[in-house]
């Protein structure tokens, strides 16, 4: 039996921030993130009877969101011209992306968008969801060593990019 409407509304309100943020940071744009998030909740509504606890639901939501957002990202990568237009439109229309150039968080998010997909997914799960590497490995169905390698490479790339574009973060030589 599917989830009742009241219970379903409560689940949306509880988890919408997490689902939307994951989708946004992986897929990279707000319209796609909203579409992905809605699809994830629709799927939750259909398969809700099989989910037995809040932890199970959270785990399920994270996993399905990552997969759906990754699929959306890949679909968009297949049509790079459209993707570039949407990305530019999205950035200009979204006040969230128009933060001052000195906003470190905004610039880190920009750098994150430039990371390859597996590294980006690992970084988002580690630093947005504050998951440990073995939890990420379980969620993604990957070996822990792979997840650690993705995290290492992701941080290394971010540090290099930040060293170039964010001078204030580079420690001056003594």
């Amino acid at each position, binding site marked *: 039996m599917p989830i009742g409407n009241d219970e379903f509304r409560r689940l949306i309100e509880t988890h919408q921030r997490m689902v*939307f943020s994951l989708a946004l940071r992986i897929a990279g744009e707000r319209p796609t993130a*909203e579409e992905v998030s809605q699809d994830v*909740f629709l799927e939750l509504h259909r398969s809700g009877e099989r989910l037995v606890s809040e932890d199970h639901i959270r785990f399920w939501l994270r996993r399905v969101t990552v997969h759906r957002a990754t699929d959306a990202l890949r679909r968009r990568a297949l049509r790079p011209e459209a993707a570039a237009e949407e990305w530019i439109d999205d950035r200009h229309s979204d006040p969230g992306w128009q933060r001052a150039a000195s906003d470190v968080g905004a610039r880190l*998010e920009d750098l994150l968008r430039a990371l390859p997909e597996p590294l980006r997914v690992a970084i988002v799960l580690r*630093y947005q969801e504050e998951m440990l590497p073995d939890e990420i490995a379980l969620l993604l169905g990957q070996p822990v060593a792979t997840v*650690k390698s993705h995290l290492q490479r992701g941080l290394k790339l*971010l540090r290099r990019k930040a060293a170039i574009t964010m001078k204030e973060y580079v*420690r001056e030589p003594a």
Partner: protein
Amino acid sequence: MNQPEEFNQPEEPLAELEQKELERELMQALRPVAAPEGFAQRTLARVLESNSESKSESNSESNSESKSESKSESAPARFRVIAMRPRPRLWASAAIAAALLAGVFIVEQTHLRRQREEAELAQQQFEAALRITGETLEQTRRQLQQAGVQLGN
């Protein structure tokens, strides 16, 4: 809350971004953001819409099944169900039948073409064999003539 963990030591500590500082900044930067306003309502609306679609589909299917089984239904109701249900299936059946016919036609044509090609090849081989035999006979006849052997005709 899990504390940041060092996954990689900076290779050049004086020139690279501080690892822990980067991890702290990442945690700050990647805090969950609010979903767009009205997200929950839009999602619920999609669920209701999806539910009503699936209900109407299942209703029409169960109606058509029960009515086709029941012989005591009134004629207009039966005709309505028949008129509603088969239209997409009729087109689908027609399309499948056309595809099958086209497939059979193509296979048949391919088979006939292959037979024709094989027959032509056999004819060419037969003609070549005849020519070679004729030439051989002619050569033998000339050799016999040169040797003084007279053949009839």
